[in-house]
């Protein structure tokens, strides 16, 4: 009798991570989320020292999930949230002073979500709205004066807009009773892309930031999901199963230029597209049949996408460094789920976290002020 049950361990965790990605708009649609790959040896100490900013991530080292911060340059970690609920990193504010956190809990059989603003300087966490059944997928205006999110405050699911403070006025931007989901603010703050099922299946729409002038960008009888505006404003990426598998597509905000980013490359089911800071590249996860998920990068200038990880173990959730030179990602290659770093070409793969319990969902940004290293500090390790 065999005893290889290790392969079953972590299934539950993978499913939970899938679920959370859905909440956070990371678009993890099919297959499992996790991590693991190859490379040409870890980054040198010297190179590490030059890595910018801080990476917020969710850690399962405690019974509840908390948001932690890690400095990629040093591996020093700080705990950001300490709520009794599970908390996940949403979107950093444009000025880098705080992070929107999605809290989720089950209270007497009721599933509850809440958006919170966690200042990086250790200030009190701000409850952005009362807890409710649906409060997810936050997206910031570029000046940080407001954000949009998915909410069921007045309906099944609408896109709402509010200022990032407690008791702020909440404006409902959509009305379709069939539901409105996954908003993404344009980099100039004038428009919001979102999904709506108003015609009977999910399509991508764009509206002005005040909810007027709704334009439909896609038309097809299968599902178009998870729009994400490119940082240069030229493209909107989305997921679609129109070809019988989920693929990453891009379309210009005027509805022209639609195409699948992976061309004829055999990437499998695709998900989690993330734009490079200059908007010229899209990293995404592809999982071919009977294989583990790998991280790919497509150049918007053309050419076939390139695999950055080798598929020997599950790699997921790519996230660009603010300078676009590196990627953070979650990997299962050590048996636990840990964050890893690599250069944007896939070389120099380096283990960043090593705490027991999954560390995943990286959000890499330049903070207004670097948080002080706190308790639980751990050094990063090379692979």
């Amino acid at each position, binding site marked *: *009798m*065999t005893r290889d*049950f290790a392969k079953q*361990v972590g*299934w*539950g965790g*993978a*499913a*939970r991570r899938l*679920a*959370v990605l859905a*909440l956070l708009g990371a678009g993890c649609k*099919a*297959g*499992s989320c996790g991590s693991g790959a190859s490379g040409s040896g870890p980054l040198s100490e010297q190179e590490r020292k030059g890595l910018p900013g801080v990476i917020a991530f969710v850690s399962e080292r405690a019974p509840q999930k908390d948001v932690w911060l890690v400095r990629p340059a040093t591996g020093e970690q700080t705990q950001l949230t300490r709520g*009794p*609920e*599970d908390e*996940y990193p949403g979107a950093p504010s444009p000025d880098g002073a705080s992070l929107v956190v999605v*809290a*989720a*809990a089950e*209270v*007497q*059989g*009721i*599933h*509850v979500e*809440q958006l919170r603003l966690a200042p990086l300087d250790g200030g009190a966490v701000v409850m952005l709205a*009362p*807890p*409710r*059944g*649906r409060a997810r997928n936050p997206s910031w205006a570029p000046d940080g004066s407001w954000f949009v999110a998915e909410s*069921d405050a007045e309906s*099944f699911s609408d896109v709402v807009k509010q200022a990032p403070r407690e008791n702020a006025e909440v404006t409902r931007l959509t009305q379709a*009773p*069939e*539901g409105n*989901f996954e908003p993404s603010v344009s980099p100039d703050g004038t428009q919001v892309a979102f999904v709506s*099922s108003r015609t*009977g*299946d999910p399509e991508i729409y764009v509206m002005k930031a005040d909810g007027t002038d709704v334009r*439909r960008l896609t*038309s*097809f009888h299968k599902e178009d*999901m998870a729009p994400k505006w490119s940082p240069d404003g030229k493209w909107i990426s989305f997921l679609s*199963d129109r*070809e*019988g*598998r*989920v693929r990453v*597509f891009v379309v210009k905000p005027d*509805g*022209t230029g*639609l*195409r*699948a980013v992976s061309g004829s490359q055999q990437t499998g*089911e695709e998900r989690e597209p993330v734009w490079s800071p200059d908007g010229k590249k899209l990293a995404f996860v592809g999982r071919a049949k*009977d294989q583990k998920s790998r991280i790919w990068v497509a150049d918007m200038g053309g050419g076939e996408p390139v695999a950055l990880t080798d598929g020997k173990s599950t790699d997921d959730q790519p996230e660009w460094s603010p300078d676009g030179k590196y990627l953070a990602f979650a990997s299962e290659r050590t048996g636990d789920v840990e964050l890893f770093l690599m250069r944007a070409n896939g070389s120099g793969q380096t283990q960043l976290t090593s705490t027991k319990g999954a560390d995943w969902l990286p959000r890499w940004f330049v903070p207004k002020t670097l948080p002080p290293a706190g308790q639980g500090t751990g050094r990063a390790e090379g692979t």
Partner: protein
Amino acid sequence: MHPFRKPLATLAAALALAACGPQEPAPTETPAVTEDSRTPAQREAERTPYELDEAFAKAGKDFGVPADLLKAISYTETRWEMVRGEVEFEGMPAAYGLMALRGEKLSEGARLAGVSEEAARTWPEANIRAAAALLSSYANELKVDRTDVGAWAPAAAKLSGIDNAEAQAQYIHQNVYDILRKGAVAQTPAGDLAVSLMPTQAQAKFPSPGVVRSMSADYAPAIWRASPNYNARPSGTDVSMVVIHTCEGSYSSCWSWLVNSASGVSAHYVVNESGSEISQLVLESNRGWHVGATYSCSLNGSVMCGLNGTSVNNFSVGIEHGGFASQSSFPAGQIDASAKLTCDITKGQGIVRDSYHIVAHGRLQPASRTDPGPNWPWSTYISKVQSYCGTSTPSTGIIIDSNQANNDTSKGYVEVTGSSWASSTNVGGYYGSGYYASPTAAVSEPVTFWFYLPSAATKTIDAWWTSATDRSTTAPFIMYNASGTKLATVNVNQQANGGRWNTLGTYSFTAGWNKVQLSRWTTSGYYVIADAVQVR
């Protein structure tokens, strides 16, 4: 190399004989399931990648329990899979292993068997031995005649943890002893014998309470088993979602727990493992899940105060499924039965049939729930729901897109003639992923939208294009039947009405491959646009 090959063949023959008589119709298999390329046999084999007969035999011998009974219980609970359960309902601990042992039963079984609880949770032998030891202790307590398999029924019922008499009888007669009589066999992925259960004539010595079945008011095929655990939906609530769960246990234990007022939880429906039975516990018009959803602000460190009573429960109909989120596959019959049910619910409640409205419990409960796990076939499931509801394309309608990758070419495909047609996305509002454009000319060189009809039918044809000032005002669409007879030509103005379906007319098509062509042959100096054609 494969010492079990011969016994497998013998077993298969025995089972084929045993399987005579009324049977459920074989569920239809949907091809091209992108999320799971395994064959049904591979999926099934991966459930039990261990050779377990010896472990069952040894546990049976060591604890004086019929090995076949252990196999039958394991089959009923997990279909011989080492499950790693989750807590689905408060008050019901997670189940582990081939025998689905949970909570105190797992602790007590491990103690009696002399194995650690960790081993009983994660090692097949230890898990079987813990269940056997516990079953043996129940046999002593209940003074079971150990030589009579039928006499073990009350002990098996006790091991199941089911309290409800009807559910106990169902579990014993329709599950455990039914599989004892029918027999079953499982192979490992390598093709070796995983578990063999030879058919026997065992009859459970267990009461069969006469139950008057009342049928569901919402869904005719379902059995009505009322749960007290519900309340009214807030007035004016539109039901907008179907939430898919797994029981984290067997069907019988699931519905019996949810109709128990002490559990304080419910679901609208529970679908059994084979798909042969569905229970409805709460009317769709009521709110399921829990009693009196009054949120106490003093709980949870007051952090979640201010909850305004809004709840996913308000908007949703919930379906539980016998089984476990961690299981490696879900039976096709269960997926089919559930998809039919979901179709019915979405029709009745006006719910959009897409992945934003038919969702996993896990998508709502990231913190504490995983059901139904990563192996729930989502794409297949939603396609089946659409198909049963007749809303999928091409179930009642066929859409042929200019981008071949978007077509199911067994139903419809596009064919381009000549070299003048350019693929384009220059003008927005196209259907799918773009369109073909060609300058008008005194030559046909059409784009042909082929579609298959199994029998002659009258169908309405719609066309989609993107409009601009350089478009032809007389773009010629020509309809042909399957024998190539021209039915009609319709000239359309493509400078207007772009980005939507435009009706060309209704025609009598014949069985086979009919076609709609867009020709280039019209007034020169313009472009004709071939984007998509709908047949309805």
